[in-house]
C-alpha cells in the first residue's frame, strides 16, 4: 500500500516536472509578436530572416520597406519612450547608435525585452548581429543560414580583389544637387573603403563640405559619389567630368543607403563595391 502510494506520488511529480519543463520550453520558444525595429541594418536583417510580419513599429528611415499598418516611431536619433510603449511591444531591437539610449534601457522597466546590436568594427560584428537578432526573434536556424550566406558573399567578394591594387579614393555624399560632403575618418564610408582595401584620401574626422577646388586639390584615383536621391545629377558635373577625363580618374555613383548596409545585404553591398571599383565579376 505504502509502495503504491509512493508510485502515485512519483508519477504525479514526474507529470508535474514534465509540465513545468513544457511550460519553460514554451516560454523560451515563443516568438515575440510585437517587435519594434530601429535602424536600417536591423530592419535589413529582419527582412533577411523573413520576420517582417512580427514588426509593428520602425524608424523613419526604414518605414518604406513595410506596409502602412506598421507605425512610424520617428527618427532613430530622437525616439520617445511613451511613443514606443504606445505600440505595446514585447521586443525592441535597436542599433547601437539609437538615441537617447536611456529610452531603450528604460523599456525594460515596462517589461519590454530589448536587444541592442553591436557597433560595426569588423565584418564579424555584422554576423554577430544577425545571430543576435535571429535569436531574439526566436528564429536561430534562419539566422544561422542567413549569417552563412552573408559571410560567403562578403568573403567571396573580398577574395576577388586583385593584389597590390590599393588606390586613393575620394568618397562624396551628395545630399542635394549642389551640396556635397567629403567623408573622412570615423565614417561608414571610411570603414567600407578599408574593408575593400582602398585608401581614403580624406584624413579629417567626420564629414565636411567640399568645394569644386577642394576635390581638384586632392588628386584621387577614384571618386565615389553616394547619392541620397538617385535622380540627382552628378555634383559639379562639368568640373568633375573634365577633371576625371584629364587625370583618368574613375567616377562611381552609388545609392547612399549602401553606407548603412550592415544588415542582410552586407555581402551584396561588398560584392557591389568590389565589382564597381576593381571591375571584376
Amino acid at each position, binding site marked *: 500500500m505504502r509502495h503504491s502510494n509512493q508510485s502515485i506520488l512519483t508519477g504525479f511529480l514526474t507529470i508535474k516536472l514534465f509540465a513545468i519543463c513544457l511550460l519553460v520550453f514554451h516560454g523560451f520558444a515563443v516568438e515575440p509578436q510585437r517587435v519594434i525595429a530601429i535602424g536600417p541594418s536591423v530592419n535589413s536583417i529582419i527582412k533577411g530572416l523573413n520576420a517582417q510580419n512580427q514588426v509593428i513599429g520602425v524608424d523613419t528611415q526604414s518605414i518604406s520597406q513595410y506596409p502602412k499598418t506598421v*507605425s512610424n516611431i520617428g527618427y532613430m*536619433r*530622437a525616439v520617445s*519612450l511613451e*511613443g514606443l*510603449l504606445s505600440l505595446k511591444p514585447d521586443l525592441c531591437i535597436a542599433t547601437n547608435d539609437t538615441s*537617447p539610449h536611456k529610452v531603450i534601457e528604460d523599456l525594460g522597466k515596462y517589461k519590454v525585452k530589448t536587444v541592442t546590436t553591436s557597433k560595426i568594427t569588423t565584418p564579424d560584428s555584422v554576423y554577430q548581429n544577425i545571430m543576435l537578432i535571429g535569436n531574439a526573434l526566436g528564429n536561430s536556424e534562419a539566422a544561422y543560414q542567413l549569417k552563412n550566406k552573408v559571410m560567403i558573399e562578403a568573403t567571396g567578394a573580398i577574395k576577388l580583389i586583385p593584389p597590390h591594387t590599393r588606390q586613393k579614393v575620394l568618397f562624396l555624399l551628395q545630399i542635394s544637387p549642389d551640396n556635397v560632403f567629403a567623408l573622412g575618418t570615423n565614417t561608414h564610408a571610411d570603414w567600407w573603403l578599408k574593408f575593400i582595401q582602398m585608401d581614403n584620401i580624406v584624413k579629417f574626422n567626420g564629414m565636411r563640405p567640399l568645394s569644386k577646388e577642394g576635390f581638384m586639390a586632392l588628386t584621387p584615383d577614384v571618386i565615389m559619389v553616394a547619392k541620397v536621391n538617385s535622380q540627382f545629377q552628378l555634383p559639379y558635373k562639368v568640373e568633375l567630368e573634365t577633371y576625371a577625363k584629364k587625370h583618368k580618374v574613375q567616377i562611381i555613383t552609388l545609392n547612399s543607403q549602401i553606407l548603412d548596409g550592415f544588415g542582410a545585404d552586407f555581402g551584396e553591398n561588398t560584392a557591389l563595391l568590389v565589382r564597381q571599383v576593381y571591375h571584376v565579376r
Partner: protein
Amino acid sequence: MSDSIANTFYVNQRKYIFSFVSLLVLLFIAAIIALKFGAITLSWQGLIQNSGIDRQLLMELRLPRVMTTMLVGASLALSGVIMQGLFRNPMADPALIGMSSGASLFTLAFILLTSHLSALPFWANNAGITISAFSGSLLIAVLTYSLSIYRGNSNIAILLLAGIAINALCGAGIGLLTYLASDDVLRSITFWSMGSFANASYSSAIFILTTIFLCSILLRKTPLFLDSLLIGEGYARILGFNLATEKHKAILAIALLVGIATAFVGPIGFIGLVVPHIMRLIVGNHSHRNLLIFSAIYGALLLTIADFLARIIAKPAEVPIGIITALVGAPYFMFLLFRKRYKVRV
C-alpha cells in the same frame, strides 16, 4: 470724480481677478489633458488608481514632464517680462543679449568634448549639460553687461549692440563646433538645439522650481523698479532705487531663469518674446507685478499646450517642441505687429 476713479479701480480689479482665475482654470484643464492624452491615452481610472501600467506611465513619464513644461514656460515668460521692462524695448528677449546662444555654445562644447568618452553615465551627461548651459548663459550675460558699462552706468544702447556682437561671436563658435563635430555628435547637437521635454524628470522640475523661488526672492523689488523705469531712470532714482544694483539683480535672475530652462530642455524660442505682449493686452503695462504673475501662468499654459501638440501630432513619434513654439509663436507675433492693436509703451 473720486467715485469714478474708485469705480474704474473696482472694475479693473474684477477684470484682473476674472482673468487670473480663468487662466488658472485653463492651465488646470491643459494639465489634465496633457496628463491624460499622448502617444498612449490613459484611462481616467488609470489616473486615479495606485497600480498598473497607466499609473506607472503617469507617475514616471507624464507628471514630471508636465510639471517641467509648466515651470520652463513660466521661467521663460518671466525672463521675457523682466528683460522687456529693463531694456524698455518690446523686442527684447533673452536671446537678444546672447544668453540663449551662450547656453547653446557651452552645451554644444560639452557634447563635443565628451563625445570621445564612451562610457559617460546618463546622470553625468545630464548634469554636465545643465551646468554648461547655465554657465554659458550667465557668463555671456555678465560679459555683455560689462561691455555696456559706461562711466559707471549700464547704457542700454551699448548693451543691445554688445548683445548683437556677442551673439555673432557665439554663432561663429557654434558654427565651428558643428563643423568639427562627427556625424553622430552633429545629429545629437541638431536634436538638442530643437528642444525637447523627453528627458524631463522630477529632479529637473524641482531644480527649476527652486530657481524660480530664488529669483522671486531676488526680484522682490523689481516689479516696482520696472514700473518706475517706464517714467525714466531719474524717477527710479527719486524713488530710492540703486539703478546699478537693481539692474545687476535683474540680469542675474534672467541668466538663472534662461540658463536652467535651456539646460534641461534645450533652447525654446518665442515664449519669452510673445507671452509678455499677449499679457499686456489683458493687464496693461502699468503694473509689472501683475504682468509677471499673469505671464508666468500664461507661459506655463502656452508651453503645456505646445508640448501636448508635440507629443500628439506625429504619434508615436514626437515633433521637437522648438518647431511647435516657432510655428505658433512667429505667425501670432506677426499678426500682433500687423494689427497694431495696442501701442507698445515699455
